[in-house]
C-alpha cells in the first residue's frame, strides 16, 4: 500500500461517541430512561442523531451541567435530575452514563448514586445503573457494550437455574432483534435478549406520547440472567470483559461467543449453536429459507461476481458483511472502521477462511478521509455501509448500499434486516439489484430483460 498519510485530526469521522452507544443500549431495557451526566448539549445532539435514524422519539435526560457545576461538582444536578426524571417518567430503571465532562471533573457517580439512594430510597425509587463512558476514549460501540455489561453486573443476581438462554446480541437493528426473537421462539427456547429496543425504537403509531415506550428487555428477566443455561454473545471483536464474561465468572453461566450471524456460514454456525443448546434440529421454515437463499444466489451470481467493495462501519458489522460478500463472490477490497479494538484484522481473516477470497486491506481507527484516499487507490465498484459514506460515494459516483447505523438519508433504517438467512436474502437482492440497476441505467440503449 502506498503512502497513506496519517493526520493528527479527524475528517468526517467513522465513529460516534461512547455515551451514544450507552444511551441506545439503555433504551432497550424495559421501563428505562437513559440519563447522561453532563452538559445539556450532548444529550440533545445524541437524541437528534438517534431520532434521525429510527424516526422514533428517544428521551435522553441530562443533568444539564453549567459552569458552576463543573467547578463544584455535578452531584447536586445529577440528583436533582434523577428526582425530576423519577417524578415525571416514573421509570423502573434509570441508566446513568457519564460524558467527557463529568469524567474530567471526576464526579464519583457510584458514590453519588449511593447517596441518592440513601436520601430518597423508598418503594417509588427506580433502579439505578451507572456506566462510565468518557467520550474521549473509544467509540459508541464500546459505550454500548459497557452499558450492557453494567446492566448485567449491577442487576443480574439470581442464580437459580431457570433453563433460559441469554442472548447479548450487540448493536443490531430492531428488525434484527425481532428476527432473533422469532428464531429463538422457533427453537422453542426461552431467551432473554439484551438489549431489546425492537419495540422501544421501532414502535407503533400511538394515541398518546408514551412516557416510556413499551417493550425492552424485561427487568425480571435481567435479574434472572445469572440462572440461565447459557449465554450467547454476538460479535467478532468483543471486549475481553463483557456482559457475557460477567455472567460466566460470577454466575458460572457457560458463554458462547460467536460473530454476528450475517451470511450463510455465520448463520449456519449460529443455528448449529441453537440446535445444540435447544436439542432441536433447525426448524423447517429456516431450513427452507436457507435453501431459497442458495437458489437465489445461483440465479444472481453472474451479476456481482468480482465486484470490488469497500465496507465500513462498526467492526462487528463489517466482519459479518465481509464474510457474506466473500460468499456471494463480491471482493471486499477495503474493510474500515473508526473503532480500534485491536481484533479487527484477525477477525476479518478468520471470517474469510476457507473461501477463495483475497484478503482485503483492513484499517481500524480511520475516518472517511482515510477511507476515501485508500478506496480510490484500490479501485472499487460498491460502497457498503451506513449513510455517512454518502459524501464520498456521491463524489465518486459509486452506488451506496446502506446497512447498519446511522441511515439518515432514507426511511426505514430501523427495518433493515442484516441477520440470518432472511437478512442474507434481503442483502443479496439489494446488492445484486443495485449492480443491475447501475448497468441498466448506464446502458446507452436500455433493456428490459436481465
Amino acid at each position: 500500500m502506498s503512502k497513506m498519510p496519517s493526520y493528527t485530526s479527524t475528517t468526517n469521522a467513522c465513529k460516534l461517541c461512547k455515551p451514544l452507544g450507552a444511551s441506545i443500549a439503555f433504551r432497550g431495557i424495559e421501563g428505562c430512561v437513559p440519563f447522561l451526566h453532563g452538559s445539556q448539549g450532548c444529550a440533545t445532539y445524541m437524541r437528534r442523531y438517534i431520532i434521525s435514524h429510527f424516526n422514533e422519539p428517544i428521551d435522553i435526560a441530562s443533568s444539564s451541567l453549567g459552569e458552576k457545576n463543573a467547578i463544584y461538582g455535578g452531584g447536586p444536578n445529577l440528583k436533582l435530575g434523577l428526582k425530576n426524571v423519577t417524578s415525571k417518567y416514573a421509570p423502573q430503571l434509570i441508566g446513568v452514563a457519564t460524558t467527557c465532562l463529568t469524567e474530567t471533573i471526576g464526579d464519583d457517580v457510584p458514590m453519588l448514586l449511593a447517596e441518592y439512594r440513601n436520601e430518597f430510597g423508598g418503594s417509588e425509587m427506580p433502579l439505578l445503573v451507572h456506566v462510565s463512558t468518557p467520550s474521549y476514549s473509544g467509540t459508541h460501540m464500546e459505550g454500548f457494550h459497557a452499558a450492557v455489561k453494567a446492566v448485567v453486573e449491577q442487576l443480574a443476581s439470581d442464580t437459580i437455574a431457570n433453563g433460559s438462554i441469554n442472548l447479548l446480541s450487540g448493536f443490531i437493528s430492531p428488525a434484527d432483534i425481532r428476527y432473533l426473537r422469532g428464531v429463538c421462539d422457533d427453537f422453542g427456547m426461552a431467551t432473554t435478549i439484551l438489549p431489546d429496543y425492537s419495540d422501544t425504537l421501532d414502535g407503533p403509531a400511538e394515541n398518546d406520547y408514551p412516557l416510556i415506550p413499551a417493550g425492552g428487555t424485561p427487568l425480571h428477566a435481567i435479574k434472572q440472567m445469572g440462572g440461565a443455561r447459557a449465554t450467547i454473545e454476538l460479535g467478532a471483536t468483543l471486549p475481553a470483559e463483557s456482559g457475557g464474561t460477567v455472567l460466566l465468572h460470577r454466575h458460572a453461566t457457560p458463554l458462547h461467543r460467536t460473530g454476528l450471524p450475517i451470511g450463510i456460514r455465520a448463520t449456519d454456525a449460529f443455528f448449529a449453536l441453537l440446535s445444540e443448546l435447544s436439542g432441536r434440529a433447525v426448524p423447517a421454515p429456516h431450513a427452507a429459507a436457507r435453501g431459497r437463499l442458495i437458489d437465489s444466489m445461483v440465479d444472481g451470481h453472474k451479476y456481482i461476481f468480482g465486484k470490488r467493495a469497500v465496507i465500513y462501519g462498526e467492526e462487528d458489522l463489517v466482519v459479518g458483511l465481509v464474510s457474506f460478500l466473500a460468499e456471494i463472490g463480491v471482493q471486499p477490497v477495503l474493510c474500515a472502521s473508526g473503532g480500534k479494538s485491536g481484533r479487527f484484522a484477525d477477525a476479518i481473516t478468520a471470517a474469510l477462511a476457507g473461501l477463495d477470497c483475497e484478503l482485503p486491506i483492513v484499517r481500524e481507527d480511520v475516518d472517511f478521509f482515510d477511507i476515501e484516499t485508500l478506496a480510490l487507490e484500490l479501485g472499487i465498484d460498491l460502497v457498503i455501509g451506513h449513510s455517512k459514506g454518502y459524501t464520498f460515494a456521491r463524489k465518486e459516483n459509486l452506488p451506496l448500499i446502506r446497512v447498519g447505523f446511522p441511515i439518515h438519508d432514507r426511511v426505514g433504517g430501523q427495518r433493515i434486516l442484516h441477520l440470518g438467512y432472511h437478512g442474507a436474502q434481503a442483502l443479496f437482492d439489494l446488492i445484486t439489484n443495485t449492480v443491475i440497476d447501475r448497468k441498466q441505467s448506464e446502458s446507452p440503449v436500455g433493456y428490459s430483460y436481465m
Partner: protein
Amino acid sequence: MSTLPLLNERSSQIHRKGTAPFELECNKDSLAGAVSQRACVFCGSRVVLYPIADALHLVHGPIGCAVYTWDIRGALSSGPELHRLSFSTDLQELDVVFGGEKKLEKALNELIPLHKPKAAFVYSTCIVGLIGDDLEAVCKKVGAVHGIPVLPVQSNGLKGNKRAGYEAACDAMARLVGTGDITGISKHSINILGDFNLAGEIWLIREYFERMGIEVVANITGDGRVDDIRRCHGAALNVVQCSGATMDLANRMQKRYGIPSVRVSYFGVEDMAEALYTVGRHFGDQEMLEKARQIVKKELVTLLPELAKYKKALSGKKAAIYVGGAFKAFSLVKAFRLIGMDVVMVGSQTGTKEDYLELEQITDPGTIIVDDSNPLELSAFLREKDVDLFVGGVKERPIAYKLGVAFCDHNHERKEMLAGFQGMLNFAREVYGSVMSPVWKFVPRRLPLQDQDGTEVASEQ
C-alpha cells in the same frame, strides 16, 4: 385536558394567554432531568458560523460534538464547500490529561495547507474549557505561520445556552470585520445578516435587493465568504434577520463603524414585503421604494390566487409552533393566519422576555406560550389543543408523528426553501401536503372506535 404531569419548576415558563396577566420566565438554564429540546453553546456557534463555506471549521474536542454536526444544515454554497466537512481534534484521554494544545496546533498545521481555507474557526467544546487549553494563543501562533486568520470560537458548552454560542460566533466574526478593503462599495449597500441560505434562500433574497438597486456586500453567513466578511464594514446598512443569532455582530458594527441596522424577517408575505420596504425607507430613495413595490406587486399577483386554494382547504385547522428562536415564531404566526390556520401553541428554545411579550400580543386568547419545553410537555399541548399540524425541528418531528399529527420542518436541517414570496408558497404547499394527507385517517388518534377484534363499528364520515 392535560394528562401528563408537568414539573412544578417548569410552570413559570408556560403561559396560557388570557388566563392570567402575562409573565413568563425565560433565559434560565435548562432544568436537570427535564429532557430539554435545547442544544448548547457550541451548537449555537456552529449554527451561525457553519455556512461560511471557504473557512475551515475545526472542532477542538472529543469526537461526538464534531460528528453530530457533520453536514447537518441545509446551508448551500454557490462555490466552495469546505463547510460540509467535519474536522475534529478527536481528543483522547492523554490529551485530556496533558492538555490538547499541541494536538490542536499540529492539526491546524496539517489541515490548513491541505485545504487552503481563507480562514479557520476553532471551536472550543465543554471539555476544552475544563482542561484549560489556550485556544487564543494557539490560534495566534498558527495564524501567523500560515498568514490566514485563525479564529478561536469560545463555545465551551458550559458557558450558558445556545445564545451564548451566538455571541461567541459573533465575537469570532467581529475579528474579521474591518480587515478588508472597502473601496468601491456603493452607498446603497447592505449586509444580509442572520440568513443561513437553507435550500438557497439567500439567493432569492439577494436578488430582491439587487432588483431594488442595492449592493449586497456580505452574506452573514448563508453562502458566506471570508473575504466578504472582512470588508462588510463598508456597507451602509446591516439587515438582520432572526432574533438572536447575529444581532450581536450588528450591534458591534454599529458601535465600531456607526453602521445602523434594521431587523426583518423573510418568512411570510407581510414580513417579506415589509423587509424590502424597511430597507427602501432606510435609504430614503423613492425610486428604490417604487422598485420594492413593483417586486411585491409582481410576486403577489401570482402568489395570492395560489394561496387562496390552499387557504380554502386549510381554514380553521390548528397549528402549533416550537422553534429555536422566537423571531421565527412571529413570522410563522402571521404566515399561518394568511392561510387561514389558527395557531394554538407557540414556543421557543431561547426566546427573550420581549420576544414572548410580542408573541402574547399577536396570538389569540387561549394560546399556549412556552419557553424551553420538552417532549412530554409538547405532546401534552398537542393533545390538549388537538392540533392538525406541528412546526418544529428534527427533535420535534417524532413527537408529532408518534401522536398522529402532521409536521413541518422549519429548522436548520430543512431542504425546502421557505423564505421570500416563493417560500411562502412552498410553505403553504408543504402545510397542505402534510395536513391533507390521507395517512391521518389511519392513525390511532383519528381512528373510529373499534370493537375488540379490531373491526370497525363506526366509520368517520
